[in-house]
């Protein structure tokens, strides 16, 4: 399903932090996890994920490390930091409150 970009704006970082909170992963793995965990709802432009990852890294929410793969190939693996976990906690709380408000107006379960 294609979303209005404005709806997703600002939430992609939360989604990334959420999928990284489970376990570390490289870029493609994160895309796969997002796709699977959202039941195919979030089909993000895969390339646009990386600038977001770099931004999160610059903000200290995640950190990365190059790890050797098969042969001479290597992968950059991202992991969440304690700062990132705090951010995720705050953003999740804000999001739940927002959803509750939206439900109250649009109809649906008031408790998110």
């Amino acid at each position, binding site marked *: 399903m294609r979303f209005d970009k404005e709806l997703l704006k600002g939430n992609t970082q939360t989604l990334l932090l959420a999928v990284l909170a489970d376990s570390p992963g490289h*870029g493609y793995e994160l895309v796969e996890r997002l796709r699977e965990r959202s039941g195919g709802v979030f089909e993000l432009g895969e*390339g*646009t994920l990386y*600038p977001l990852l770099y*931004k999160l890294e610059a903000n200290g929410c995640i950190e990365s490390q190059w790890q050797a*793969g098969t042969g001479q190939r290597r*992968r950059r693996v991202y992991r969440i930091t304690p700062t990132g976990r705090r951010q995720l906690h705050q953003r999740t709380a804000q999001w739940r409150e927002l959803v509750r408000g939206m439900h109250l107006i649009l109809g649906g379960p008031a408790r998110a």
Partner: protein
Amino acid sequence: MPDSPRIDGHIAAMLRGSGLPMERRAETAEEFREHLRASVDRHRRAGLPAEQAVAAALAAFGRPETIRRHLRRQQRASDRRYAAGELRRYRGLYLAIAAMCGLLPIVRCPEVVPPLWRCLGGLASFLFVSALAGVAGYLAALQECRISRRRPREEYSFGASLLRWTGLAGGSLFALVAILLLVIGAVLPFIHTVLGSERPSLLLMGAAFGQAWLEHPLRTFGLSAVLVVGLGLGAAFYERSRCVDQPPRLSIP
């Protein structure tokens, strides 16, 4: 499976003009390639032929101009963070200069001016110089970011570089002259008072400077212009010398 030239071309198109430094560019290219390889493998496992798998992986990754725009925005944000950090680092120096300049109206105003007006003049002078010094410091740090990273020569434009550096040199010269005049005006009277010698008249110094402009406007302006353009040319040539002829090898063996 050997890498498709289309993947190399796509990655090169994404990184060209992204503003990323060369070292970062090579790492990003490697990361993107690894991602695209994994994506191609997945499409191959789903039963697509090689060329179609590559096309599907590239389509899912996104258009080069979109990714480039995001990368450029991210790099600019990173530069701004660095410049803001530099501004915080040197804020003591800027504030000290501004404080000295803020004393000027208080010290140099004629006695007939009421103290309240002198203080207001000092405050205005302090705010003006701190803003001027802050903006100059911020812009200089941004330019430092730009010049300190190596970029491919094909992304370099001598005209744009000359224009940018000449503008920055002209603005800096103006700010420097303004700050120096204010600092001289604020500090010299104190020094001469402490040393007990006769106070130099700032008004005379200012008048002499103004007179030089009035008497020889062409010469003064011409010298300033030569200085500014010379600085701009030097910086533009230096920036060009920092560029590299070939982008880093994108293929990984």
